[in-house]
C-alpha cells in the first residue's frame, strides 16, 4: 500500500491479475478426469466429422454378402469364402464352372457353357461385394469355354456389419454425429428459452416473477415425456421436431437455475452499488448479472447435453427416433439389443460409443462445476 509520488504517466505500469475465469481454467486443467474426458470427446467429435470422409464405406451402403459379419481386423472376404462365392455368382449366370483358383488378390475361373459364353456374365460377378473388375481373360476357339478373371475386393469391417450388411463403424460415426448434434441443438434451445425466461423473472421479481414461476411449476407437473412421445408418434419422426420438443422440456430447469442465480445476485451489494452509481438496468444485467450467471449455466449446459442424448436414445430405442437410413446411437443400440445373441458386437460398440460420450460430458460438467465453485478453498 505504498503511495507513489511521481507524476502520473499515461503508460502507468500495471500488474495483470488472474480473473475468476482464468482461475477456473487453471483448476480445470489440473483435473485429470475432466481433461481426459475433454480429449476423448474432441477425438470422437472429430472422428464423427472427418471419419465418414476418409472411411471407405458409406454409412448407408448395403453389402448383401456381408450381413452381420463379426468385427475383425482382417480383411474380408476370408479365403475359404472366395471359391464358393464365385461358384455361386457364376451359377446365377447359368454357366458351368470347371475350376476356380485364387492367386493373391486375383481369382480365375474356368467356365464352360452350352452356348457361346456371353461376355456380359461378368456383371453377375461384379454384382457380388467380393469381386470387382471381372473380365473374360481368355476364350476358347469355339467360344464355349472361357477363363474369367476378377479382383478380390478386400474390405475391412473392423466393427463388423449390421443386419442389413452395412458397415457398423461408418454407422457409428454417423450416429455420433447425429446424437451430438441433437444434444447440442436441444441444449441451445433450452438455453435460449431458459436464460431469457429465468433472467426476466428473476430480474423483474415481484408479481411478474410469481406468475412466471407458477407457470413453470405447472409445466413441471405435466408428464412431458408422454407429450413428446405423443408428438413424435402423431407427427412423424422428425429430427427437428424432436430436438425442439426435448429442448422445450429441458428449459424448465434452466429457467429455475437462472432465476435463482439472478435473484441472489440482485441482492448482492455490488449490484446495489451499481444502482447507486446510476447504471441502467440493461447495464447492470450486462456487466454484473450475466457474467456471474454464466458459470452455473455453463455447468448445467454440459450436464444437459448427455441428458438430451440419453433422452434421444431412449426415444430411438422405442422406435421413435431418427429414421433410416439415418441413425443415432439409440437406434444402433436398440438394433444391437435385438441381435444380441449371435451378433454381440452390434450392441457392444454403439454402447461403448454412447457410454464414452456420456461419461466424458458428465466428467467435464463435474470438473467445470468444481473449477468454477471451489468449496475447498
Amino acid at each position, binding site marked *: 500500500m505504498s503511495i507513489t509520488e511521481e507524476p502520473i504517466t499515461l503508460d502507468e505500469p500495471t500488474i495483470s491479475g488472474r480473473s475468476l475465469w482464468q482461475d477456473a481454467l487453471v483448476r480445470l486443467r489440473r483435473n485429470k478426469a475432466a481433461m481426459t474426458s475433454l480429449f476423448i470427446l474432441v477425438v470422437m467429435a472429430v472422428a464423427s466429422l472427418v471419419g465418414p470422409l476418409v472411411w471407405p464405406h458409406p454409412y448407408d451402403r448395403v453389402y448383401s454378402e456381408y450381413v452381420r459379419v463379426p468385427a475383425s481386423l482382417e480383411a474380408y472376404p476370408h479365403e475359404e469364402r472366395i471359391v464358393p462365392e464365385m461358384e455361386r455368382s457364376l451359377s446365377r449366370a447359368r454357366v458351368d464352372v470347371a475350376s476356380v483358383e485364387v492367386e493373391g488378390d486375383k481369382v480365375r475361373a474356368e467356365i464352360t457353357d452350352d452356348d457361346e459364353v456371353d461376355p456380359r456374365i461378368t456383371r453377375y460377378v461384379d454384382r457380388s461385394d467380393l469381386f470387382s473388375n471381372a473380365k473374360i481373360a481368355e476364350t476358347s476357339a469355339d467360344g464355349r469355354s472361357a477363363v474369367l478373371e476378377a479382383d478380390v475386393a478386400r474390405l475391412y469391417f473392423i466393427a463388423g456389419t449390421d443386419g442389413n450388411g452395412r458397415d457398423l463403424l461408418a454407422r457409428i460415426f454417423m450416429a455420433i454425429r447425429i446424437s451430438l448434434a441433437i444434444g447440442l441443438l436441444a441444449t441451445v434451445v433450452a438455453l435460449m428459452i431458459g436464460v431469457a425466461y429465468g433472467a426476466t423473472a428473476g430480474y423483474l421479481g415481484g408479481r411478474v416473477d410469481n406468475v412466471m414461476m407458477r407457470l413453470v411449476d*405447472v409445466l413441471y*407437473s*405435466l*408428464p412431458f415425456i*408422454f*407429450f413428446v*412421445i*405423443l*408428438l413424435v*408418434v*402423431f*407427427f412423424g419422426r422428425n429430427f427437428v421436431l424432436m430436438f425442439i420438443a426435448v429442448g422445450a422440456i429441458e428449459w424448465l430447469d434452466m429457467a429455475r437455475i437462472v432465476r435463482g442465480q439472478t435473484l441472489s445476485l440482485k441482492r448482492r451489494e455490488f449490484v446495489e452499488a451499481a444502482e447507486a452509481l446510476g447504471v441502467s438496468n440493461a447495464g447492470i444485467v450486462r456487466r454484473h448479472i450475466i457474467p456471474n450467471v454464466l458459470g452455473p449455466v455453463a455447468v448445467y449446459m454440459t450436464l444437459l447435453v*448427455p441428458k438430451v442424448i*440419453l433422452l434421444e*436414445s*431412449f426415444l430411438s*430405442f*422405442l422406435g*421413435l427416433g431418427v429414421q433410416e437410413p439415418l441413425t443415432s446411437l*439409440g437406434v444402433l*443400440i*436398440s438394433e*444391437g*439389443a435385438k441381435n*444380441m*445373441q449371435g451378433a*454381440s458386437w452390434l*450392441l457392444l460398440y454403439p*454402447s461403448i460409443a*454412447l*457410454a464414452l460420450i*456420456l*461419461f466424458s460430458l*458428465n*466428467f467435464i460438467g463435474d470438473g467445470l462445476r468444481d473449477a468454477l465453485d471451489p468449496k475447498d478453498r
Partner: protein
Amino acid sequence: MLSYVLRRLATAIPTLFVIITISFFLMRVAPGGPFNLERPLEAKVMENLNRIYHLNEPLWRQYLLYLSNLLHGDLGPSFVYRDFSVGDLFAAGLPVSIQLGASALTLALIIGTVLGSIAALKQNSTIDYLVVGVATFGITIPPFVIAPVLSLIFGVSLGWLPAGGWGNGALPNKILPIVTLALPQIAIVARLIRGAMIEALRSDHVRTVRAYGLPTRVVVMVHALRAAILPVVSYLGPAAAALLTGSIVVETIFGIPGVGRYFVQAALNRDYTLVMGTVVVVSIFVVVFNMIVDLVYAWLDPRVRYD
C-alpha cells in the same frame, strides 16, 4: 396436517385437469384413428364401431363424456384390447409394476445410502473414487443397454437366471428386472447422499457434536445422515412415481406384463382411452408422491412448515 393434505389435493385437481385436457386434444388432432387398420374395415362395420365408442359425436361432447366417466372412476373401454376395459388392464398390470418398482426403490435407497455415506466419510480415498466412478457409470449407462447385457450374461451365457419372462411372478424372474431398475437409482441416491453428507459433515452443528465427544456412529447416523437424506427425499417423489408406474424398457426387454408398455403401444395404435388412462394414472401417482414427499420432508426438517 389433514387440512394441509386436503389443500394440496385441491390444488392438484386443476393440474390434473390441464394434463387431461392437453392430452385429450393433442391426441385427437393427430392424424389416424383406432380403426384405421392396414386392411380397411367395411364402411358399415366402421360406422358401428364409431357409434359404439361415441367417435361419431362432436369432439367437445366426447371430451365432456370422458370427463364425466372419469369422475365416476370409469376409464373407458380399450380400443385395441377389445375385450378389456382400461381399468381391467391397469388392475392386472399395475400390481406387477408396483411390485418391481417398489423393490427396486427399496434396494436403491438402502444400497445408495450406504455407498454414498461411505464415500463421504472416506472422501478422496480410493473407496470414494470407486463409488463415484460406479455411480457415474450407473447414471450414464441407460437401462436399455444394461437390461440386454444383464440378460445376455446371467440369462444366456451363465444360465443362472431366466433371460426374460414373468413366470407368474417367480422370484428368479424378478431379479434381473429389479436390478436393472435399481442400478441408476442406486447411482443417483449414492451421489446425492455423498454430496449432502460431505456438506453436513463440514457444517457447524456437526462440528459441535464432534466437539462434545459423541461417538462417530452417533455423529454420522443421528446428525449428519438426517441432514444428508433431505435432498434424497425431494428426489424420491418424482422418482417413485416413475418407478411404480412401470418402465417400458425393462418390461419390453424382459417381457413383463406391467403397465409400462401400454403407453407407447397405445399411442402407436391410437388407443385413445388407454393413452388417456395411462396419463391419468401416472399423473395421480406424481401428485400423490409429491405430497407424500413434502410431508416426509416437513417431518424430517422442523424448519419447514405446512402452510
